[in-house]
């Protein structure tokens, strides 16, 4: 018996303009991979027939959205589907109203994305904004599907037209899709089976493309970064708990504790009922150290030898504003990066950019609004320990918090 443990699981997100067919694509993926009980589809089909309508796969998603918080569920289902290669889970399937903050939340937890565009309507503002967010989140595995090809008579020239239009935009973002596929989600063209209506398309189907992707690589091969979450006192041992963000930490390692650059040695790696000698990237562990130093949440451990994160109070970042509440350059804001939390000020908004057109709205701006991106210089009240986003994303990204909630996400492009 093959167990889930050996199988791989990959999470994906499906994004794009609200009417371009996300629900239908999900419905079709579930149908073609046999991932929902047949009777659910039968019910949709029967009802469509009873009402004299065309079968609509998107309706199947409503089965997954029983709006009942308490009590007993009747129609339960999962937004999971399988191919022969592995299990997929779709994060944050489309709902009634779509907010950018939900899309960001979903996409930040996934390994790959499908961006859907209507062949007839072409690239819309929302398409571009979603593409921008994928880029910002560092998602590199991307499939573009050009949907509703039936509405344009399966024409190759229209496919190429829409494709070029989008690729031009993505090029400016420096984001290259892995695949671009012409599909008809409702009929299943190029979803699980090659389309007979588009013999000119020689590429892979959506499922075949997904199967070529890799689960997000962990940063075990990089230099050590260990973020301290908390310090526990257990049975007279002082245990520093946290997560290895990158690299590997071993018993006996000579380490530096940042930002104060205190030197010490790893005495032990701690896990309940285990005696590990090391912890690798992604692992939540505890460690004890040789010397009794003052250590607190937010400290970052790296190796004494080798490359180290920067300790700085000034960073340059691209910040995506996701709150209705407009930002004013004069206000203080909280910056949260891994387990670090500091008060910060924005020294300069060099550029204010519309995330859907990439147009520069303003240079040297004083404000930043919802769905806008600011290229800015941030000054923190206390030094922070950071990396470039392209090197170690876990220490190269942060959120801004204001009045009880996250208002923006940022990636570090330069540590000054």
């Amino acid at each position, binding site marked *: 018996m093959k167990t889930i*443990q050996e199988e*791989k*699981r990959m999470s994906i997100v499906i994004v794009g303009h609200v009417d371009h067919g996300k629900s239908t694509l999900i419905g079709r993926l579930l149908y073609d991979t046999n991932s929902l009980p047949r009777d659910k589809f039968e019910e949709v089909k029967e009802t469509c027939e009873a009402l004299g309508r065309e079968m609509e796969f998107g309706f199947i998603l409503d089965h997954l959205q029983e709006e009942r918080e308490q*009590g007993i569920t009747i*129609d339960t289902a999962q937004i999971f589907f399988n191919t022969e290669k592995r299990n997929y889970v779709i994060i944050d399937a489309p709902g009634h109203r779509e907010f950018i903050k939900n899309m960001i939340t979903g996409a930040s937890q996934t390994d790959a994305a499908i961006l859907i565009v209507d062949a007839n309507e072409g690239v819309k503002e929302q398409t571009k904004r979603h593409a921008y967010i994928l880029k910002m989140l560092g998602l590199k595995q991307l499939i573009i599907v050009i949907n509703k090809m039936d509405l344009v008579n399966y024409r190759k020239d229209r496919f190429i037209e829409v494709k070029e239009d989008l690729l031009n935009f993505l090029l400016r973002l420096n984001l290259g899709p892995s695949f671009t596929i012409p599909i008809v989600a409702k009929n299943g063209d190029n979803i699980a089976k090659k389309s007979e209506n588009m013999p000119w398309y020689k590429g892979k189907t959506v499922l075949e493309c997904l199967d070529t992707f890799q689960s997000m690589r962990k940063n075990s091969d990089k230099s050590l970064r260990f973020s301290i979450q908390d310090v526990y006192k257990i049975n007279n041992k002082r245990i520093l708990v946290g997560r290895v963000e990158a690299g590997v930490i071993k018993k006996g390692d000579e380490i530096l504790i940042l930002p104060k650059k205190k030197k010490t040695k790893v005495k032990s790696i701690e896990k309940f009922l285990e005696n590990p000698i090391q912890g690798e990237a992604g692992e*939540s562990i505890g460690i004890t150290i040789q010397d009794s130093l003052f250590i607190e949440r937010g400290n970052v451990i790296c190796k004494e030898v080798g490359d180290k994160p920067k300790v700085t109070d000034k960073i340059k970042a691209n910040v995506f504003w996701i709150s209705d509440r407009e930002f004013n350059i004069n206000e203080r804001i909280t910056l949260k990066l891994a387990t670090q939390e500091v008060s910060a000020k924005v020294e300069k908004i060099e550029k204010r950019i519309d995330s859907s057109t990439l147009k520069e709205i303003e240079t040297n701006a004083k404000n930043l609004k919802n769905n806008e991106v600011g290229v800015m210089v941030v000054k923190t009240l206390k030094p922070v320990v950071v990396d470039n986003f392209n090197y170690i994303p876990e220490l190269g990204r942060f959120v801004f*918090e204001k009045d009880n*909630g996250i208002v923006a996400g940022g990636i570090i492009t330069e540590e000054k």
Partner: protein
Amino acid sequence: MDHLSELESKSIYIIREAYKQFHNIAMLWSIGKDSTTLLWLCRKAFFGKIPFPILHIDTGYKFPEMIKWRDEYAKKWGLNLIVGRNEEAIKAGISPKNKLECCTALKTEALKQTITKHKFKALLLGIRRDEHGIRAKERYFSPRDLEFRWDYKNQPPELWDQYKTKQDDEEHIRVHPMLHWTEIDIWEYIKKEKIPIIPLYFAKDGKRYRSIGCKPCCLPINSKADTIDKIIQELKTTSISERSGRAQDKESAYMMQKLRSLGYM
């Protein structure tokens, strides 16, 4: 790292975050397999010494085995167990005969009373995204208002392991460290870790419980799965949902009453 270790690490990270942020928290333990797994993860997060109370809402209608089992492990694991009961409602004789009223009074009300009494700021719960559709929209840190309502259409964003941390006075936060697990993951993990699980889940005389709660409202399913391996095998081939064993007739009863008053029957 293998799949289960990844799941475990992420959950432990979230549990530690919740404790660091709120301190005054509790974990809700239903004695079922999910929350027992969560309890296990909490023990791991704090090296066997969980620094917050474990909360069990006792409706008075639980399987007697559950109470015995609960007390046995609470002692064994040195838990600070708080049992929440709506004594007033139990005394008033509220019973599953009127299911709607029963759940509200003995579960929801009892939980509300306990939260108020201990002023908990956050509760750890063992819910999973795959339990049912709407859960796919849950967040790891999910605010609830005074009436325990969840405004899923307008939730705070959550990215890069940064969760909603601050809270207004009137709400508590539900923390879901196991949101990313599936029912099969749970069983695989129970097997790997040898987590003790209440025997009601294992088949006896051709029947087993797939989900447990109050005795009058739980129906066993037909099953021969008397080991974890057999349960995993069974789950891989079934297309029936997890909670279908729970009785659904409290709504039926209420609906009939309404239809009568509308003149339908």
